[in-house]
């Protein structure tokens, strides 16, 4: 067909085509002579509107617009892990080789390396019937990740031909599948999937296994499930990115997808550098062996920023379908929402709250609904955990992005300015944050860590609650006038805050703390509290216990007791008992 679709108007990243005849909604198109990537976002009788994922400087009316006949999609196959992409899955390293340190437009690079040979093991034989999502071959993608090649979810049929095991390139055919209509399909090492459609699963499962992060305030007070959703809202400087980095480094997911959506460039280079140096404690391999980075920094085109979130989740779902536990960090979803607002403004749509489009909540809901734990089509179990940072305007949590995110996520880790100012990190405010996964996860905690864990947790949060109401009084009249039992609450809460909730990301032991140690730390703190209560009950002044330095000692136990040495906690308990007993005599 002759292409007579040409540009009519240009307004920022939005381009219109007059009287176009063949475009579909959400179709991916190439715009101009440089083949800039774009997507059809509105069609009327007269005009087709396209958002362009690259700078539109230099485009002219009359430049050609060609359709691709398919929606915006990503290429899924080996080579995704340990790679860094922009918002529409173009590998930034390959772009660097092509155009140098600055990103030029219209970079025509393949998403995945087409020439690399992969060592493929075929898992099916001629005559096997395969349904969508079933595995037909595997290959080692990195030393720790086995890539499982699955039949496209919309395809099924009988295997008519297989190639021998061996080395193949991305687009080599390794098997042929004949569907029920007798049409033969070549199975290669890759497939395509539209980014705005979620990949199907067999059955959704309840979120009953926690995602262990090694961060005490999260694992203990506000745990998240594998396949769960969490929001981290916080003004600038409260440590959203730090918290995301900590989670990406230490959480026990198999694969991490880190989406820097409107992030700082220097921060992305930090992630790149740190992750290649860090060794994963489980596999003893560099973190990059399980990490995919999507970097669409704040000065890269806004439309690609909007797409980056969907690209990330689609890659996540692909690995989930292989039977992996994936954690996706999106930093920050507010930038994504702003990209929506910016494009909506260019389309002159009627704005709702604060200029955001009225469909903001439904877009957020669609995104977070793609998280979850499920029985996957390939047989096993997989999950995608979504952790989205939110950057509220003016640090005001009542703004639309935060409020709507709150509705669709089940963990809310509110970052607090005053905690951050006093350099209490992670600055997760324990009064404002919540997790709705307690009921789902408590059986797991009880089975794996004993009944105590849950009990300690509720005691700890009760003490923090009590402290917070006491602080209201202290703020007015000072702490000196409080009776000793209330002073004790304040003293213990201080140990909890400084010694337990606050965690030092730069300390070799403290940066990741196993659940067992978290439990023992709680136990020791609560033991001291209980024993000191006896002192107070016997009308011995609290100051005598404080003078012993036990509270100070517990504040520093996070540094003094290395991970994996639970026996030292017994010494601490013994020391507490001896000291208190001698006071009681």
């Amino acid at each position, binding site marked *: 067909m002759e292409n007579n679709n040409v540009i009519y108007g240009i307004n920022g990243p939005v381009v219109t085509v007059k009287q176009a005849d063949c475009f579909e909604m959400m179709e991916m198109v190439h715009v101009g002579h440089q083949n800039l990537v774009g997507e059809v976002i509105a069609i009327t009788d007269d005009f087709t509107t396209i958002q362009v994922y690259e700078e539109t400087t230099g485009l002219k009316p009359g430049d050609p617009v060609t359709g691709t006949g398919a929606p915006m999609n990503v290429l899924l196959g080996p080579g995704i892990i340990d790679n*860094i992409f922009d918002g529409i899955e173009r590998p*930034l390293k390959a772009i660097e080789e092509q155009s140098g*340190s600055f*990103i030029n437009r219209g970079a025509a690079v393949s998403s995945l390396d087409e020439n690399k040979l992969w060592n493929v093991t075929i898992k099916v034989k001629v005559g096997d019937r395969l349904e969508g999502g079933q595995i037909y071959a595997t290959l080692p993608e990195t030393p720790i990740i086995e890539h499982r090649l699955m039949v496209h979810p919309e395809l099924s049929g009988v295997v008519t031909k297989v190639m021998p095991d061996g080395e193949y390139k991305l687009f080599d055919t390794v098997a042929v599948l004949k569907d029920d209509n007798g049409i033969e399909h070549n199975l290669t090492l890759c497939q395509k999937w539209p980014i705005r459609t979620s990949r199907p699963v067999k059955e959704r499962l309840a979120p009953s296994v926690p995602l262990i992060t090694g961060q005490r305030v999260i694992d203990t007070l506000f745990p998240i499930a594998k396949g769960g959703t969490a929001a981290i809202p916080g003004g600038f400087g409260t440590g959203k990115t730090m918290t995301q980095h900590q989670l990406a480094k230490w959480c026990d997911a198999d694969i991490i997808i880190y989406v820097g959506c409107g992030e700082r460039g220097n921060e992305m280079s930090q992630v790149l550098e740190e992750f290649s140096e860090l060794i994963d404690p489980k596999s003893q391999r560099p973190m990059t062996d399980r990490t995919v980075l999507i970097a669409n920094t704040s000065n890269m085109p806004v439309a690609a920023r909007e797409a980056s979130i969907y690209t990330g989740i689609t890659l996540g779902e692909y690995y989930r379908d292989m039977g992996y536990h994936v954690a996706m960090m999106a930093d920050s979803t507010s930038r994504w929402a702003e990209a929506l607002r910016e494009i909506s403004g260019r389309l002159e749509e009627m704005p709702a709250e604060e200029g955001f489009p009225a469909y903001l909540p439904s877009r957020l809901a669609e995104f977070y609904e793609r998280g979850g734990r499920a029985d996957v089509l390939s047989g096993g179990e997989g999950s995608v955990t979504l952790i989205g940072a939110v950057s509220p305007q003016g640090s005001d949590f009542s703004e639309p992005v935060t409020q709507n995110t709150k509705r669709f996520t089940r963990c809310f880790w509110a970052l607090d300015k005053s905690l951050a100012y006093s350099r209490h990190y992670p600055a997760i405010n324990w009064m404002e944050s919540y997790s709705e996964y307690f009921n789902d996860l408590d059986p797991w905690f009880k089975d794996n860590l004993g009944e105590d864990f849950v009990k300690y947790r509720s005691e700890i949060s009760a003490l923090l609650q009590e402290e917070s109401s006491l602080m209201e009084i202290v703020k007015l009249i000072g702490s000196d006038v409080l009776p000793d039992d209330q002073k004790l609450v304040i003293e213990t809460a201080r140990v909890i805050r400084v010694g337990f909730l606050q965690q030092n990301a730069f300390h070799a032991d403290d940066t990741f703390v196993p659940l067992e140690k978290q439990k023992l730390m709680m136990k020791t703190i609560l033991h001291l509290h209980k024993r000191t209560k006896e002192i107070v009950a016997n009308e011995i002044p609290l100051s005598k216990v404080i003078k012993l330095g036990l509270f100070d000692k517990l504040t520093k136990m996070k540094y003094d007791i290395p991970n994996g040495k639970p026996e030292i906690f017994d010494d601490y308990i013994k020391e507490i008992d001896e000291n208190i007993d001698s006071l009681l005599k």
Partner: protein
Amino acid sequence: MIINYVGVKEINGSLIVMDGVKGVSNEEIVDIRLDNGTTRQGRVVQIEGERIVVQVFEGTKRISLKNTKTVLTGHPMEMPLAPEIIGRVLDGAGRPIDGLGDIFPVKRANINGTPINPVSRVYPKNYINTGISTIDILMTLIRGQKLPIFSGTGMRHNDLAVQIVRQAKISGADSSNFGVVFAAMGVQKDVAEYFRKSFEESGVLSRVVMLLNLSNDPIIERTLTPRCALTIAEYLAFELDMHILVIMTDMTSYAEALREFSSSKGEIPGRKGYPGYLYSDLASLYERAGMIKGHSGSVTQIPILTMPNDDITHPIPDLTGYITEGQIVLDRSLQGQGLYPPVSVLPSLSRLMKDGIGKGYTRGDHQSLANQLFASYAKVIDARSLASVIGEEELSPVDKKYIEFGRLFESRFVNQGFNENRSIEQSLDLGWELLSTLPRGELDRVDDAILDKYYKG
């Protein structure tokens, strides 16, 4: 063949609308000749078939529907670049105004720049010794960082910027490679003159490129000034391998110019009338800081912005804070007490300092000291608010110690002379000296080994 388009269809604010224009490209620069012989420049901002919207940099004063002839130049806004640009004074759109003639370009570059590929960036780690205790110890400036000063009208942000330029110059080992690009946007003539004189006095003037868009200069030109400045900075840093410090003042005027332009274009406003793309627009400026693999130069940005009504949640400081790698916040009450620099320590922050300080960079105890100073000073604020209710006499002995610590911290650590250049060791030792006035048990951010070495209480 050059086509002259005669007349315009519509004039609205700084925008003109023209009809029947063929072969125009987006963001193209047009020359507009008035019939009185003067020429203005404009930029195509919107195209709809043959109808185009052009933004006129010098404003539309005296333009009528009939008196213009417009020529398409065929290229986007470009900046002529040459090594000789150092030491020159340019107007807000990058044209020389120092009477020394045109710049003979070695190359021309699009002022919008192109994003640095994240994988090509070098993670910045070399600290810049500014000789100012608060900045060096608590919010260390790193080469390749963007660290804005959040100030308010009437505060001494200009002095602070001048002091940074003067003292940062001396400390660098390769000071011959050092240069400053100074972009003034909507500032008064005296302020620009103050900077020029200060640069001259400290002997850096020959290494400064000044771009001046003063407060009475056209607003639309102001939206170009930082872009021209950063294009020059990138050229000097990444092609001539220099270390460039870019000072942009005042970002608030820039954002207001953008708002004015946006509203005259009839765009849907976001917060406080600023366009919805203010974040992306600011990011396209601030993100042009950094270092690149294979080049030894760097672009470090110190944008200065005056917070309207000292409100840090106003969209301009708010969005800036989300893009930049920290901020230095100035405080009016500290200034009122006669302290200089009036740095409000608690909300100030440098995101890149954690990897650029400590052993091998500054000193092993730096991070611990900084954490402890922040934590202890936060307690001072608590103690003060308690004292304001119950009176200082009624405070517990520990709280009284904090009040005293706070007083010393502000008068000796924060406060420092405009010409006083403290070495990093001096500042670190001063920090420990002040912390030593507190009981050792209160220092809960530092481990014992470091306390044993530095705590002298």
